[in-house]
Protein backbone atom coordinates (compact mmCIF):
# COMPACT_ATOMS: atom_id res chain seq x y z
CA UNK A 1 0.00 0.00 0.00
CA UNK A 2 1.33 3.44 -0.92
CA UNK A 3 0.25 5.89 1.77
CA UNK A 4 1.12 9.38 2.95
CA UNK A 5 -0.25 8.50 6.37
CA UNK A 6 1.65 5.24 6.46
CA UNK A 7 1.47 4.86 10.22
CA UNK A 8 -2.20 3.94 10.03
CA UNK A 9 -1.48 1.39 7.29
CA UNK A 10 1.17 -0.22 9.48
CA UNK A 11 -0.85 -0.33 12.70
CA UNK A 12 -3.85 -1.80 10.91
CA UNK A 13 -1.68 -4.60 9.54
CA UNK A 14 -0.98 -3.85 5.88
CA UNK A 15 2.04 -6.12 5.22
CA UNK A 16 3.88 -3.93 2.69
CA UNK A 17 3.60 -0.17 3.01
CA UNK A 18 5.40 2.36 0.81
CA UNK A 19 5.90 5.89 2.16
CA UNK A 20 3.88 8.27 0.01
CA UNK A 21 4.26 12.02 -0.30
CA UNK A 22 1.24 13.95 1.01
CA UNK A 23 -2.46 13.18 1.14
CA UNK A 24 -3.14 15.66 -1.67
CA UNK A 25 -0.54 14.00 -3.90
CA UNK A 26 0.43 10.59 -2.65
CA UNK A 27 2.52 9.41 -5.60
CA UNK A 28 4.51 12.54 -6.35
CA UNK A 29 5.02 16.20 -5.63
CA UNK A 30 3.76 18.69 -8.24
CA UNK A 31 5.54 21.58 -6.54
CA UNK A 32 8.85 20.08 -7.73
CA UNK A 33 7.95 20.77 -11.34
CA UNK A 34 6.95 18.17 -13.96
CA UNK A 35 10.36 16.52 -14.47
CA UNK A 36 11.29 16.08 -10.81
CA UNK A 37 7.70 15.15 -9.94
CA UNK A 38 7.85 12.33 -12.48
CA UNK A 39 11.26 11.19 -11.23
CA UNK A 40 9.91 11.06 -7.66
CA UNK A 41 6.79 9.18 -8.84
CA UNK A 42 9.02 6.61 -10.55
CA UNK A 43 10.94 6.00 -7.33
CA UNK A 44 7.71 5.50 -5.39
CA UNK A 45 6.47 2.96 -7.92
CA UNK A 46 9.91 1.31 -7.98
CA UNK A 47 9.75 0.93 -4.19
CA UNK A 48 6.28 -0.59 -4.51
CA UNK A 49 7.51 -3.15 -7.03
CA UNK A 50 10.48 -3.99 -4.81
CA UNK A 51 8.13 -4.40 -1.84
CA UNK A 52 5.96 -6.84 -3.80
CA UNK A 53 8.93 -9.13 -4.34
CA UNK A 54 10.21 -8.89 -0.75
CA UNK A 55 9.39 -11.50 1.90
CA UNK A 56 7.92 -9.87 5.01
CA UNK A 57 6.95 -11.30 8.41
CA UNK A 58 5.21 -8.19 9.79
CA UNK A 59 3.96 -4.82 8.52
CA UNK A 60 7.01 -3.28 6.85
CA UNK A 61 7.65 0.23 5.61
CA UNK A 62 9.49 0.66 2.30
CA UNK A 63 11.16 3.96 1.49
CA UNK A 64 11.43 5.22 -2.08
CA UNK A 65 14.99 6.12 -3.09
CA UNK A 66 15.80 9.79 -3.47
CA UNK A 67 15.64 10.49 -7.23
Amino acid at each position, binding site marked *: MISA*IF*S*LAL*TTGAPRVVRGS*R*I*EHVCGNPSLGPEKDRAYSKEIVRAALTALTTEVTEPTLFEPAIP
Partner: protein
Amino acid sequence: MKLELGNFPVTEVAFGRETRWAESRLEIDRAELVGRILEDPRILSAELHLARPRESVRITLIRDVIQPMVKVSGGGAVYPGICGRPVETVGRGRTHRLDGAAVVEVSDTPLYMGPGMGNYTDRAVIDMRGNGDRSPPFSKLNNVCVVLETDPTRDVLDRNDAAHSAALLVSDALAETVRNLEPPELETFELHPTDTALPKVAYVLCQHSPEHHAGSVRGWGDHLYGITRLHPPWVIHPNELIDGALSFDNSWGFANNHMLRELYQRHGEDLNFVGCIVVRTRWSSQLEKNVAARQSAKTAKMLGAEGAIVVGMVGGNDFMEAVRTAQACELEGLDTVFVVMEDEPSEGGPPILEPLPEVKAIVSVGVGRAELSPEPTSPVSRVIGRRNITLNMSTGVGKVDAQGQLPFYRSGLGWSSLDSRTSCFEV
Protein backbone atom coordinates in the same frame (compact mmCIF):
# COMPACT_ATOMS: atom_id res chain seq x y z
CA MET B 1 -8.56 36.58 33.33
CA LYS B 2 -11.87 37.09 35.07
CA LEU B 3 -15.13 36.99 33.18
CA GLU B 4 -18.56 37.88 34.50
CA LEU B 5 -21.52 36.42 32.64
CA GLY B 6 -24.83 38.19 33.01
CA ASN B 7 -27.63 35.78 32.06
CA PHE B 8 -30.99 37.09 30.90
CA PRO B 9 -33.58 34.34 30.51
CA VAL B 10 -35.79 34.12 27.43
CA THR B 11 -38.96 32.09 27.77
CA GLU B 12 -41.01 33.87 25.12
CA VAL B 13 -40.15 35.28 21.73
CA ALA B 14 -42.37 37.24 19.35
CA PHE B 15 -42.23 39.80 16.57
CA GLY B 16 -43.16 43.29 17.77
CA ARG B 17 -42.74 46.98 17.12
CA GLU B 18 -39.26 47.21 18.55
CA THR B 19 -36.44 44.86 19.44
CA ARG B 20 -36.36 44.64 23.21
CA TRP B 21 -36.15 42.28 26.17
CA ALA B 22 -38.33 42.59 29.25
CA GLU B 23 -39.04 40.00 31.96
CA SER B 24 -38.01 36.96 29.91
CA ARG B 25 -39.89 38.11 26.82
CA LEU B 26 -37.88 38.92 23.71
CA GLU B 27 -39.58 41.05 21.08
CA ILE B 28 -38.10 41.52 17.64
CA ASP B 29 -38.62 44.29 15.07
CA ARG B 30 -38.60 41.99 12.08
CA ALA B 31 -38.74 44.65 9.34
CA GLU B 32 -35.92 46.69 10.82
CA LEU B 33 -33.54 43.75 11.08
CA VAL B 34 -34.36 42.42 7.62
CA GLY B 35 -33.81 45.91 6.24
CA ARG B 36 -30.37 46.09 7.82
CA ILE B 37 -29.43 42.65 6.49
CA LEU B 38 -30.47 43.62 2.97
CA GLU B 39 -28.09 46.58 3.00
CA ASP B 40 -25.43 44.01 2.13
CA PRO B 41 -25.58 43.61 -1.66
CA ARG B 42 -24.29 40.04 -1.37
CA ILE B 43 -27.61 39.00 0.24
CA LEU B 44 -30.36 38.42 -2.31
CA SER B 45 -33.16 37.68 0.15
CA ALA B 46 -33.62 37.55 3.91
CA GLU B 47 -36.43 36.47 6.18
CA LEU B 48 -36.80 36.02 9.92
CA HIS B 49 -38.86 33.17 11.32
CA LEU B 50 -39.43 32.01 14.86
CA ALA B 51 -39.33 28.39 16.02
CA ARG B 52 -40.38 27.81 19.60
CA PRO B 53 -39.96 24.69 21.77
CA ARG B 54 -42.64 22.05 21.18
CA GLU B 55 -43.89 23.68 17.98
CA SER B 56 -44.45 21.35 15.05
CA VAL B 57 -41.56 22.80 13.06
CA ARG B 58 -38.39 21.47 11.49
CA ILE B 59 -35.54 23.81 10.64
CA THR B 60 -33.26 22.73 7.75
CA LEU B 61 -30.25 24.12 5.87
CA ILE B 62 -28.69 25.01 9.21
CA ARG B 63 -25.26 26.60 8.96
CA ASP B 64 -24.90 27.65 12.58
CA VAL B 65 -26.74 28.02 15.86
CA ILE B 66 -25.51 31.15 17.64
CA GLN B 67 -25.66 32.10 21.32
CA PRO B 68 -26.76 35.77 21.42
CA MET B 69 -24.34 37.66 23.64
CA VAL B 70 -22.53 40.97 23.86
CA LYS B 71 -19.36 42.21 25.53
CA VAL B 72 -20.38 44.90 27.97
CA SER B 73 -16.85 45.52 29.23
CA GLY B 74 -13.41 43.99 29.07
CA GLY B 75 -12.57 44.66 25.47
CA GLY B 76 -13.19 43.03 22.16
CA ALA B 77 -16.36 41.54 20.73
CA VAL B 78 -17.89 38.11 21.14
CA TYR B 79 -17.10 35.79 18.22
CA PRO B 80 -13.87 37.70 17.62
CA GLY B 81 -12.06 37.78 14.32
CA ILE B 82 -14.93 36.45 12.20
CA CYS B 83 -16.63 38.62 9.59
CA GLY B 84 -14.40 41.60 10.23
CA ARG B 85 -14.98 41.66 13.98
CA PRO B 86 -12.21 42.89 16.32
CA VAL B 87 -9.48 40.39 17.09
CA GLU B 88 -8.88 41.70 20.59
CA THR B 89 -8.50 38.88 23.12
CA VAL B 90 -11.82 38.08 24.80
CA GLY B 91 -12.71 36.35 28.06
CA ARG B 92 -12.41 39.33 30.42
CA GLY B 93 -14.73 41.92 31.87
CA ARG B 94 -18.42 41.25 31.47
CA THR B 95 -20.57 39.58 28.85
CA HIS B 96 -24.36 39.70 28.80
CA ARG B 97 -26.21 36.84 27.14
CA LEU B 98 -29.75 35.71 26.38
CA ASP B 99 -30.33 32.34 27.98
CA GLY B 100 -32.92 30.25 26.16
CA ALA B 101 -32.73 31.96 22.78
CA ALA B 102 -30.55 31.31 19.76
CA VAL B 103 -30.07 32.64 16.26
CA VAL B 104 -30.14 29.95 13.60
CA GLU B 105 -28.38 30.73 10.32
CA VAL B 106 -30.40 29.07 7.53
CA SER B 107 -29.09 29.13 3.97
CA ASP B 108 -28.09 26.85 1.12
CA THR B 109 -24.78 28.70 0.78
CA PRO B 110 -22.09 25.98 0.56
CA LEU B 111 -19.08 26.11 2.88
CA TYR B 112 -16.67 25.57 0.02
CA MET B 113 -16.68 24.20 -3.48
CA GLY B 114 -14.86 20.93 -3.75
CA PRO B 115 -14.58 17.52 -2.12
CA GLY B 116 -15.67 16.80 1.40
CA MET B 117 -18.82 17.81 3.20
CA GLY B 118 -18.78 21.44 2.15
CA ASN B 119 -21.39 21.04 -0.54
CA TYR B 120 -23.87 19.39 1.77
CA THR B 121 -25.83 22.40 2.76
CA ASP B 122 -28.40 20.36 4.63
CA ARG B 123 -26.16 18.79 7.24
CA ALA B 124 -28.46 19.43 10.16
CA VAL B 125 -32.12 19.51 11.08
CA ILE B 126 -33.76 20.77 14.26
CA ASP B 127 -37.15 19.27 15.09
CA MET B 128 -38.63 21.59 17.66
CA ARG B 129 -40.77 18.82 19.10
CA GLY B 130 -37.64 17.26 20.53
CA ASN B 131 -37.05 13.57 21.00
CA GLY B 132 -38.20 12.82 24.52
CA ASP B 133 -35.37 12.54 27.00
CA ARG B 134 -32.88 12.40 24.14
CA SER B 135 -33.80 15.85 22.91
CA PRO B 136 -30.87 17.88 21.74
CA PRO B 137 -30.75 21.29 23.45
CA PHE B 138 -31.62 23.18 20.24
CA SER B 139 -35.19 21.99 20.37
CA LYS B 140 -35.54 23.65 23.77
CA LEU B 141 -34.38 27.08 22.64
CA ASN B 142 -36.44 29.92 21.27
CA ASN B 143 -34.88 29.96 17.83
CA VAL B 144 -34.77 33.10 15.72
CA CYS B 145 -34.12 31.77 12.23
CA VAL B 146 -32.37 34.01 9.73
CA VAL B 147 -33.20 32.55 6.32
CA LEU B 148 -30.87 33.84 3.65
CA GLU B 149 -30.01 33.57 -0.01
CA THR B 150 -26.56 34.77 -1.01
CA ASP B 151 -25.56 35.84 -4.50
CA PRO B 152 -24.38 32.65 -6.27
CA THR B 153 -22.17 34.61 -8.67
CA ARG B 154 -19.93 35.71 -5.81
CA ASP B 155 -16.87 33.87 -4.54
CA VAL B 156 -17.87 31.21 -2.01
CA LEU B 157 -15.81 32.79 0.80
CA ASP B 158 -17.61 36.07 0.20
CA ARG B 159 -20.97 34.29 0.35
CA ASN B 160 -20.06 32.61 3.62
CA ASP B 161 -18.92 35.91 5.07
CA ALA B 162 -22.19 37.54 3.98
CA ALA B 163 -24.44 34.81 5.38
CA HIS B 164 -22.69 34.61 8.71
CA SER B 165 -22.46 38.41 9.01
CA ALA B 166 -26.21 38.58 8.63
CA ALA B 167 -26.75 35.99 11.34
CA LEU B 168 -24.31 37.81 13.64
CA LEU B 169 -26.10 41.09 12.91
CA VAL B 170 -29.29 39.57 14.31
CA SER B 171 -27.48 37.93 17.24
CA ASP B 172 -25.80 41.25 18.10
CA ALA B 173 -29.09 43.13 17.83
CA LEU B 174 -30.86 40.71 20.16
CA ALA B 175 -28.04 40.80 22.71
CA GLU B 176 -27.92 44.61 22.58
CA THR B 177 -31.36 44.66 24.21
CA VAL B 178 -29.77 43.64 27.51
CA ARG B 179 -26.46 45.49 27.33
CA ASN B 180 -27.39 48.16 29.88
CA LEU B 181 -29.73 46.11 32.07
CA GLU B 182 -29.01 44.54 35.42
CA PRO B 183 -28.74 40.75 34.90
CA PRO B 184 -31.07 38.55 36.96
CA GLU B 185 -28.19 36.13 37.28
CA LEU B 186 -24.46 36.83 37.33
CA GLU B 187 -21.81 34.11 37.14
CA THR B 188 -18.09 34.63 37.57
CA PHE B 189 -15.45 32.61 35.77
CA GLU B 190 -11.93 32.82 37.10
CA LEU B 191 -9.23 30.18 37.42
CA HIS B 192 -8.20 31.30 40.90
CA PRO B 193 -5.12 29.78 42.55
CA THR B 194 -5.96 26.49 44.24
CA ASP B 195 -4.50 23.90 46.54
CA THR B 196 -1.41 22.66 44.71
CA ALA B 197 -2.19 19.08 45.73
CA LEU B 198 -5.24 19.01 43.48
CA PRO B 199 -4.66 17.17 40.18
CA LYS B 200 -4.01 19.54 37.31
CA VAL B 201 -6.16 18.90 34.24
CA ALA B 202 -5.92 20.30 30.72
CA TYR B 203 -8.81 20.23 28.27
CA VAL B 204 -7.59 19.50 24.76
CA LEU B 205 -9.97 20.18 21.88
CA CYS B 206 -9.29 18.69 18.45
CA GLN B 207 -10.78 20.91 15.76
CA HIS B 208 -10.90 20.13 12.06
CA SER B 209 -9.37 22.57 9.60
CA PRO B 210 -11.16 22.97 6.24
CA GLU B 211 -7.89 24.04 4.63
CA HIS B 212 -7.52 21.08 2.29
CA HIS B 213 -11.17 20.52 1.45
CA ALA B 214 -11.64 24.21 0.72
CA GLY B 215 -8.36 24.51 -1.14
CA SER B 216 -7.72 27.73 0.74
CA VAL B 217 -6.13 28.78 4.02
CA ARG B 218 -9.20 30.95 4.48
CA GLY B 219 -11.73 28.16 3.99
CA TRP B 220 -14.92 28.42 6.03
CA GLY B 221 -14.97 26.11 9.03
CA ASP B 222 -14.12 25.99 12.72
CA HIS B 223 -12.93 29.54 13.41
CA LEU B 224 -10.53 30.35 16.25
CA TYR B 225 -10.31 34.15 16.34
CA GLY B 226 -11.38 33.97 12.71
CA ILE B 227 -8.60 31.58 11.74
CA THR B 228 -9.46 28.23 10.14
CA ARG B 229 -6.18 27.16 8.66
CA LEU B 230 -3.94 24.49 10.18
CA HIS B 231 -1.94 25.86 13.09
CA PRO B 232 0.22 24.49 15.88
CA PRO B 233 -1.36 23.72 19.28
CA TRP B 234 -2.89 26.92 20.57
CA VAL B 235 -3.24 27.65 24.30
CA ILE B 236 -6.66 29.12 25.05
CA HIS B 237 -8.17 30.28 28.32
CA PRO B 238 -11.60 28.70 28.93
CA ASN B 239 -13.09 32.22 29.20
CA GLU B 240 -12.17 32.82 25.59
CA LEU B 241 -14.30 29.83 24.59
CA ILE B 242 -17.19 31.13 26.67
CA ASP B 243 -16.94 34.43 24.78
CA GLY B 244 -17.10 32.63 21.41
CA ALA B 245 -13.44 32.61 20.34
CA LEU B 246 -14.11 29.19 18.79
CA SER B 247 -17.16 29.18 16.61
CA PHE B 248 -18.75 27.31 13.74
CA ASP B 249 -21.59 25.04 12.87
CA ASN B 250 -22.79 25.00 16.40
CA SER B 251 -21.33 28.14 17.95
CA TRP B 252 -23.96 27.78 20.65
CA GLY B 253 -22.43 24.46 21.65
CA PHE B 254 -18.96 25.94 22.07
CA ALA B 255 -20.28 28.86 24.12
CA ASN B 256 -22.42 26.53 26.27
CA ASN B 257 -19.92 23.72 26.59
CA HIS B 258 -20.93 21.47 29.49
CA MET B 259 -17.51 19.86 29.80
CA LEU B 260 -15.95 23.26 30.22
CA ARG B 261 -18.53 24.36 32.76
CA GLU B 262 -18.03 21.24 34.81
CA LEU B 263 -14.25 21.61 34.80
CA TYR B 264 -14.74 25.17 35.99
CA GLN B 265 -17.19 24.14 38.70
CA ARG B 266 -14.78 21.55 40.02
CA HIS B 267 -11.75 23.84 39.83
CA GLY B 268 -10.60 24.26 43.41
CA GLU B 269 -12.82 21.43 44.61
CA ASP B 270 -11.28 18.24 43.32
CA LEU B 271 -9.17 19.43 40.43
CA ASN B 272 -7.07 22.30 39.15
CA PHE B 273 -8.19 23.31 35.65
CA VAL B 274 -5.01 24.55 34.02
CA GLY B 275 -6.44 25.59 30.67
CA CYS B 276 -7.38 24.57 27.18
CA ILE B 277 -5.39 23.66 24.11
CA VAL B 278 -6.86 23.71 20.62
CA VAL B 279 -5.27 21.14 18.31
CA ARG B 280 -5.93 21.50 14.59
CA THR B 281 -6.54 18.34 12.69
CA ARG B 282 -6.29 17.19 9.10
CA TRP B 283 -2.62 17.84 8.54
CA SER B 284 -1.80 16.03 5.33
CA SER B 285 1.46 14.29 6.07
CA GLN B 286 2.48 11.75 8.68
CA LEU B 287 5.27 14.03 9.87
CA GLU B 288 2.93 16.93 10.54
CA LYS B 289 0.42 14.72 12.35
CA ASN B 290 3.17 13.35 14.58
CA VAL B 291 4.50 16.83 15.34
CA ALA B 292 1.02 18.20 16.08
CA ALA B 293 0.36 15.38 18.54
CA ARG B 294 3.71 15.52 20.32
CA GLN B 295 3.70 19.30 20.58
CA SER B 296 0.15 19.30 21.95
CA ALA B 297 1.23 16.93 24.70
CA LYS B 298 4.28 19.06 25.40
CA THR B 299 2.09 22.15 25.61
CA ALA B 300 -0.18 20.44 28.11
CA LYS B 301 2.87 19.48 30.16
CA MET B 302 4.18 23.05 30.07
CA LEU B 303 0.82 24.22 31.42
CA GLY B 304 1.53 21.94 34.36
CA ALA B 305 -1.06 19.33 33.46
CA GLU B 306 -0.95 15.97 35.16
CA GLY B 307 -4.06 14.78 33.38
CA ALA B 308 -5.68 15.59 30.07
CA ILE B 309 -9.11 15.25 28.54
CA VAL B 310 -8.65 14.98 24.79
CA VAL B 311 -11.87 15.46 22.87
CA GLY B 312 -11.60 14.30 19.28
CA MET B 313 -15.03 14.41 17.69
CA VAL B 314 -13.47 13.84 14.32
CA GLY B 315 -13.15 10.90 12.01
CA GLY B 316 -10.89 9.39 9.42
CA ASN B 317 -7.92 11.53 8.49
CA ASP B 318 -8.53 13.97 11.35
CA PHE B 319 -8.84 11.13 13.81
CA MET B 320 -5.17 10.26 13.43
CA GLU B 321 -3.81 13.34 15.12
CA ALA B 322 -6.58 13.24 17.71
CA VAL B 323 -5.73 9.72 18.87
CA ARG B 324 -2.02 10.47 18.54
CA THR B 325 -2.47 13.51 20.78
CA ALA B 326 -4.02 11.26 23.42
CA GLN B 327 -1.16 8.80 22.95
CA ALA B 328 1.46 11.57 23.17
CA CYS B 329 -0.11 12.87 26.39
CA GLU B 330 0.13 9.40 27.93
CA LEU B 331 3.73 9.12 26.79
CA GLU B 332 4.43 12.46 28.52
CA GLY B 333 3.15 10.92 31.74
CA LEU B 334 -0.29 12.55 31.74
CA ASP B 335 -3.28 10.47 32.77
CA THR B 336 -5.37 10.90 29.65
CA VAL B 337 -8.99 10.34 28.73
CA PHE B 338 -9.92 10.28 25.07
CA VAL B 339 -13.49 11.28 24.25
CA VAL B 340 -14.46 10.12 20.81
CA MET B 341 -17.19 8.69 18.63
CA GLU B 342 -17.15 5.09 17.51
CA ASP B 343 -17.12 3.62 14.05
CA GLU B 344 -20.12 1.69 12.83
CA PRO B 345 -19.98 -1.91 14.10
CA SER B 346 -21.34 -3.38 10.86
CA GLU B 347 -18.07 -2.39 9.15
CA GLY B 348 -16.37 -5.18 11.06
CA GLY B 349 -13.39 -3.14 12.17
CA PRO B 350 -12.32 -1.97 15.62
CA PRO B 351 -14.56 0.57 17.39
CA ILE B 352 -12.09 3.32 16.60
CA LEU B 353 -10.05 3.70 13.43
CA GLU B 354 -6.60 3.25 14.91
CA PRO B 355 -6.55 1.81 18.42
CA LEU B 356 -3.20 2.68 19.97
CA PRO B 357 -2.06 0.72 23.04
CA GLU B 358 -1.31 3.78 25.21
CA VAL B 359 -4.80 5.18 24.72
CA LYS B 360 -6.57 2.98 27.22
CA ALA B 361 -9.13 5.27 28.84
CA ILE B 362 -11.73 6.02 26.22
CA VAL B 363 -15.17 7.56 26.58
CA SER B 364 -17.35 6.76 23.62
CA VAL B 365 -20.18 9.09 22.70
CA GLY B 366 -21.68 6.35 20.59
CA VAL B 367 -21.90 5.54 16.94
CA GLY B 368 -24.20 8.44 16.31
CA ARG B 369 -26.04 6.96 13.40
CA ALA B 370 -29.71 7.20 14.20
CA GLU B 371 -30.58 5.27 11.07
CA LEU B 372 -29.11 2.14 12.69
CA SER B 373 -32.01 1.97 15.12
CA PRO B 374 -34.71 3.85 13.29
CA GLU B 375 -37.73 5.21 15.05
CA PRO B 376 -39.81 7.12 12.54
CA THR B 377 -40.75 10.67 13.39
CA SER B 378 -44.07 12.02 12.26
CA PRO B 379 -44.60 14.88 9.82
CA VAL B 380 -44.49 18.52 10.95
CA SER B 381 -46.78 21.40 10.11
CA ARG B 382 -44.06 23.71 8.90
CA VAL B 383 -40.48 23.75 7.63
CA ILE B 384 -38.12 26.71 7.99
CA GLY B 385 -35.47 26.43 5.30
CA ARG B 386 -35.81 24.04 2.40
CA ARG B 387 -38.23 21.12 2.38
CA ASN B 388 -36.18 18.94 0.04
CA ILE B 389 -33.25 17.63 2.10
CA THR B 390 -30.73 14.78 1.99
CA LEU B 391 -31.53 12.04 4.43
CA ASN B 392 -28.21 10.21 4.50
CA MET B 393 -25.75 12.94 5.16
CA SER B 394 -22.68 10.73 4.89
CA THR B 395 -23.45 9.47 1.40
CA GLY B 396 -25.41 12.41 0.10
CA VAL B 397 -28.18 10.18 -1.21
CA GLY B 398 -31.80 9.91 -0.24
CA LYS B 399 -33.81 13.05 -0.83
CA VAL B 400 -36.82 13.46 1.44
CA ASP B 401 -39.41 16.04 2.25
CA ALA B 402 -38.48 17.55 5.61
CA GLN B 403 -42.14 18.23 6.28
CA GLY B 404 -43.08 14.57 6.00
CA GLN B 405 -42.42 11.49 8.05
CA LEU B 406 -38.71 10.79 8.48
CA PRO B 407 -37.43 7.26 9.14
CA PHE B 408 -35.46 8.40 12.17
CA TYR B 409 -34.98 11.48 14.35
CA ARG B 410 -32.55 13.39 12.20
CA SER B 411 -30.41 15.96 13.97
CA GLY B 412 -26.89 16.22 12.66
CA LEU B 413 -25.76 18.75 15.21
CA GLY B 414 -24.13 15.83 17.03
CA TRP B 415 -24.77 17.00 20.53
CA SER B 416 -23.81 15.25 23.67
CA SER B 417 -22.90 16.75 26.99
CA LEU B 418 -19.38 15.45 26.43
CA ASP B 419 -18.93 17.02 23.02
CA SER B 420 -16.82 20.07 22.49
CA ARG B 421 -18.09 20.58 18.98
CA THR B 422 -20.55 19.16 16.55
CA SER B 423 -19.78 16.13 14.60
CA CYS B 424 -21.47 15.13 11.40
CA PHE B 425 -23.19 12.38 13.27
CA GLU B 426 -26.22 12.42 15.39
CA VAL B 427 -25.73 11.23 18.94
